[in-house]
């Protein structure tokens, strides 16, 4: 029982990390109707930026206090992501207004490749350490209740808390503020939004900035956990099933979907894996999403997709 709970908790926390990446997908889709395949590349780019800035800032400014350097690195990386958002809007999105979803999807695949190349060319392609002061040792809890206790990874716990804060903030932003309303209008209908005076370009820059910051937070946490390396980009592919499950237009859906996928992956690996040869993590999430697509394509919380003739 203790082992089951441990696996469950591990899954929940891994799921939270997926949700962090899925949030970026949902944000951009919710606000511009574009599915941003490049989110993973953005996570990698942001993490690389932060890791390298954390190294370079002490060299450039002589600042040796680790916390200050890390914070400055975060801010610098955030700034870079916002500049990136502006560039993407200018060079790509502006020219693809009103194109169909498939074209935009493929454009973001192109952006993804470009960012992977640019990130590695600018910041380097080795594995970098990213130390944000998260505790590395796991702690043992409930050792009176369950035999052997339950091992909890503190890092994952902190990650889950950060993700929760981010989600709450974003939900409030979308529901309560004027800009949030404008974002929802743009996602619904580009032309209608323009006709009431909402500037598409400005909105898109804001959205991609926010998604960029979300990517930075995700990259920071994943990077501190795994080290900043190229495989971070493929993490996005792991997060795709999360948005399918949760619904592409729902921020809470990204969380719930992430948790479900995280738990499902861990449990299936432990209990089903040995039956079929192991290593089923790589496709479990996708097959789950596939089954969901057949039954309920809009996901748990998404809006129903309507096709008009």
């Amino acid at each position: 029982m203790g082992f089951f709970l441990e696996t469950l908790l591990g899954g929940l926390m891994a799921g939270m990390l997926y949700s962090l990446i899925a949030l970026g997908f949902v944000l951009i889709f919710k606000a511009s109707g574009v599915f941003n395949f490049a989110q993973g590349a953005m996570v990698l780019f942001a993490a690389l930026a932060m890791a390298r800035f954390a190294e370079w800032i002490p060299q450039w400014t002589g600042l040796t206090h680790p916390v200050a350097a890390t914070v400055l690195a975060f801010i610098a990386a955030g700034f870079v992501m916002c500049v990136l958002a502006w560039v993407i809007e200018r060079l790509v999105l502006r020219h693809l207004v009103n194109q169909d979803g498939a074209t935009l999807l493929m454009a973001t695949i192109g952006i993804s490749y470009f960012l992977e190349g640019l990130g590695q060319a600018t910041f380097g392609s080795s594995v970098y350490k990213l130390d944000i002061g998260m505790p590395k040792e796991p702690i043992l809890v409930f050792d009176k209740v369950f035999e052997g206790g339950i091992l909890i990874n503190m890092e994952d716990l902190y990650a889950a808390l950060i993700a929760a804060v981010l989600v709450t903030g974003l939900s409030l932003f979308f529901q309560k503020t004027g800009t949030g309303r404008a974002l929802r209008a743009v996602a619904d209908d580009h032309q209608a939004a323009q006709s009431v005076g909402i500037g598409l370009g400005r909105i898109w820059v804001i959205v991609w900035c926010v998604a960029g910051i979300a990517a930075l937070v995700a990259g920071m946490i994943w990077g501190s956990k795994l080290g900043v390396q190229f495989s971070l980009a493929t993490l996005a592919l792991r997060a795709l099933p999360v948005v399918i499950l949760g619904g592409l237009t729902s921020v809470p859906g990204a969380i719930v979907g992430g948790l479900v996928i995280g738990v499902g992956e861990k449990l299936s690996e432990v209990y089903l894996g040995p039956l079929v040869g192991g290593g089923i993590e790589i496709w479990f999430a996708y097959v789950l999403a596939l089954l969901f697509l057949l039954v309920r394509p809009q996901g748990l919380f998404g809006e129903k997709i309507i096709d008009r003739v």
Partner: protein
Amino acid sequence: MIYRENGQFKTSYAADQQIFPVLQDRIAIAVLLAIAFVAVPLLASDYLLRAVLIPFVIMSLAAVGVNVLIGYCGQISLGSGAFMAVGAYGAYNFLVRVPGMPLVVALALGGLCAMAFGVLFGLPSLRVKGLYLAVATLAAQFFADWMFLRIKWFTLDTPSGSAAVSNLQFFGLPLESDAAKYLFCLALLALLALGAKNLVRGAIGREWMAIRDMDVAAAVIGIRPMYAKLTAFAVSSFIIGVAGALWGFFYLGAWEPAAFSVDISFRLLFVVIIGGLGSIMGSFFGAAFIVVLPIALAIVLPMIASLLGISISTTAISHAELMIFGALIVAFLIVEPHGLARLWSTLRLKLRLWPFPH
């Protein structure tokens, strides 16, 4: 002046509907085929054959298959790597496990395995489209990755999942030299590409395009959406499966499951976007582009770098390659979504009027 249709009047519908209605085109294709089948094997160096022409031929075949699915039928698929893998491992198993199995039959059977796999994972297309379908095809991709790594039976119980073939023969003739391999692959390409072209200009091709353009209206005029989509998956994955088998047998020689990972799926998507969605000829352009680009970059970039006085490493070149791919995808989607094929046909239109401007 040269490229004129003057005097070429068609007196039958069959003549009007042929693949190359203009006489100059037919001559050009005949010359091209002569060069490809005769001149190249005699004159090309081994390096050229091995590094450029054989991958070009096989990639073109795979691109034709991908184009049938994405370009003509409008079903986004990111699982092409999986279809190639199924074709490769399928053909490998038939070739190695069944004594006396002819090579062509093994390849065809590999293609049929890929076809079954493709139809199975194409079933979601009856319910969803666009991004959601892309996710479903990714499920196929990752499932195949796992299948060939973990299920030992497919790889004759080798621990790493690798497979290797040797001593390939075609009706007793050994296919050892690069020229022989090239000719074999080229012959298969010509055959399957012709079949694909016939399909896309026939009734089923129109069904596919109708589904792509407006699938609700297609049902109203009597097209069966299920039949059209599943046949698109079937034909496409058969062709891609054969291409995968050729890739493993004749280009790689020995391969592991990672050879057919999601990276190759994306590459094939690029090939058809750059080459031109919905164009058989575009598949060739795109494949040529993708095969030649890394080589060209490896030559051109160091030259530019040495002109500027900076040194450039191979990792930097591979990063530049990624950036150029990505930038080109975006550029093509913005400027010419119909790819190189459209640029080519625009050029031909101008050529018809030459030397007059309009």
